């Protein structure tokens, strides 16, 4: 992990709310793992004060590139959205503990929505590099909001889309779909993001099928490095309730340990 001044290569809208930013940062591009994040300085001054955590959406070590897919939401991401090619952006990372793959797995299932669509995209790449197949269920409000589909397909994932606008993203329907896929495709592990609904859903499936699972969580951060204990959440570990730091002990956690998704 290190602090670098990355150079913006591209920063374009992918739909009404999300932008895709690619930066040249050869010092860190080779260090990235799926599920890790960068803490990005989103101001030239003291407002907004704190850095913003952003998942690694894509990493291209050969080209020295790191990519982010972000929701333009408040002051910080608006500042980021205004960066133009050639501008510098201050990145600190890669930080945290990413997703992991166990030997012997052949197929994984990824269930993502919202920001999780960015966080989970590189999981398909990680899986493919280790000869593992990915089935991705991507959930969004409308067809326009589906992100990462091409990115995941680029790395061989089979993608299914569920939407609010046609009712297919409704919890019961998604749960039925996931259970069906898990059974039919002999899935070995489940992956999801911090969405409360999806995490609970996948926790139920994992419990009933005995499959291992991983979830990437989000929490407001101070340092991003494990020092300030601002980002803790309660987990169940080693038979007791413990407070763990999302930035340093995660952001990816074992699905069975998560208490409050």
């Amino acid at each position, binding site marked *: 992990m290190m602090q670098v001044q990355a150079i913006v290569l591209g920063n374009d809208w992918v739909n009404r709310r999300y932008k895709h930013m690619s930066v040249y940062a050869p010092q860190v591009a080779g260090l990235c793992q799926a599920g890790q994040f960068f803490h990005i300085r989103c101001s030239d001054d003291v*407002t907004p*004060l704190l850095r913003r955590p952003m998942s690694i959406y894509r990493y291209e070590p050969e080209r020295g590139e790191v990519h982010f897919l972000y929701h333009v939401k408040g002051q910080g991401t608006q500042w980021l959205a205004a960066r133009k090619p050639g501008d510098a952006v201050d990145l600190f990372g890669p930080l945290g503990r990413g997703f992991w793959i166990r030997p012997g797995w052949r197929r994984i299932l990824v269930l993502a929505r919202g920001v999780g669509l960015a966080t989970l995209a590189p999981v398909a790449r990680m899986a493919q590099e280790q000869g593992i197949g990915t089935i991705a269920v991507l959930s969004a409000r409308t067809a326009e909001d589906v992100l990462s589909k091409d990115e995941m397909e680029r790395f061989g994932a089979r993608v299914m889309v569920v939407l609010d606008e046609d009712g297919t993203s409704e919890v019961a329907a998604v749960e039925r779909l996931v259970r069906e896929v898990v059974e039919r495709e002999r899935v070995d592990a489940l992956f999801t993001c911090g969405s409360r609904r999806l995490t609970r859903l996948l926790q139920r499936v994992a419990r009933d099928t005995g499959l291992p699972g991983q979830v990437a969580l989000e929490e407001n951060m101070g340092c991003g*490095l494990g*020092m*300030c204990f*601002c*980002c803790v959440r309660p987990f169940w570990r080693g038979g007791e309730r413990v407070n763990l730091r999302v930035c340093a002990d995660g952001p990816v956690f074992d699905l069975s340990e998560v208490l409050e998704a």
Partner: protein
Amino acid sequence: MSGIDMTVELGGLRLKNPVMPASGTFAEELTHVLDISRFGAVVTKSVTPEARLGNPGPRVAETAAGMINAVGIQSKGADAFLAHTVPFYRRFDVPLIASISAETADQFAALAAKLSVDGVAALEVNISCPNLEDDGRSFAMDPGQTARVLEKIRRVTDLPLFAKLTPNTGDIVAVALAAEQAGADAVVIANTILAMAIDVETRRPKVGNGMGGLSGPAIKPIIVRMVYQAARRLRVPIIGCGGICSAEDAIEYMLAGATAVQVGTYTFLQPAGMLDILAGMEAYALRHGVTRIRDLVGAVEWPTRREQVSTNSSDRLGGGGGIMACGV
């Protein structure tokens, strides 16, 4: 090396320079990012007698030029501190200041005795946390309570004692004097300012605990004022802490009367920021022909009476300064 003498002395503890991290904003992780041996000292997160979970989340909310934290001291407890933290810092050529926190005066004394071990260079007493013997007000809100807890601690340890004061008091000078008289070798001014932020969409407080402590650049002018007020009355040195984000901020604290400074929130924005501050302070000294950094302590200059008369029809703000005029 610039040849500038950066050393300062704090209650018998000699530091190679006046810059150190603030408690709760620094931990072992920073050793992966920079060489912490270059700091004047390191200060640990406050350790409590037993392990504590801290407050429920969210624990941080951003505000204009600041942040509110409601971590509530998550601590591994004193045994883990002695087993892991103290040995960890032995590897670095930098004095270790252990910050301690407890809920009663006797607990404070017992903890101070327990942590007075080889490898700990000084104790920083965080008396800004709720005092269970005084209805949850913090010790440092009151001169009497401050004196009571520090006297007890003074009796059980020979280590230099730094009292970390709270800005949430009506009379910082009285509290600082009480700490000095009770045996503190230095005072840290200050901890965070009690604050609150509400999300207007959900109508809920932005931190889980409802209220929390404000830190960052937003609080600097208030704490600089407190350092200045206390410096005029204290004999023991002051460590200034609050909102420092640059070498100029650190120098400002020294001019107001601080002998050393602590950097907190800024490390979150700039992990290696403390080293930039140090380099900037040397550059400032060079630029101003200052050969010993300690010569800046309390060196704020007041306009002469003649200058004031020409700019201010009232001469209430006499030379030497500091007479507070209401509404000016």
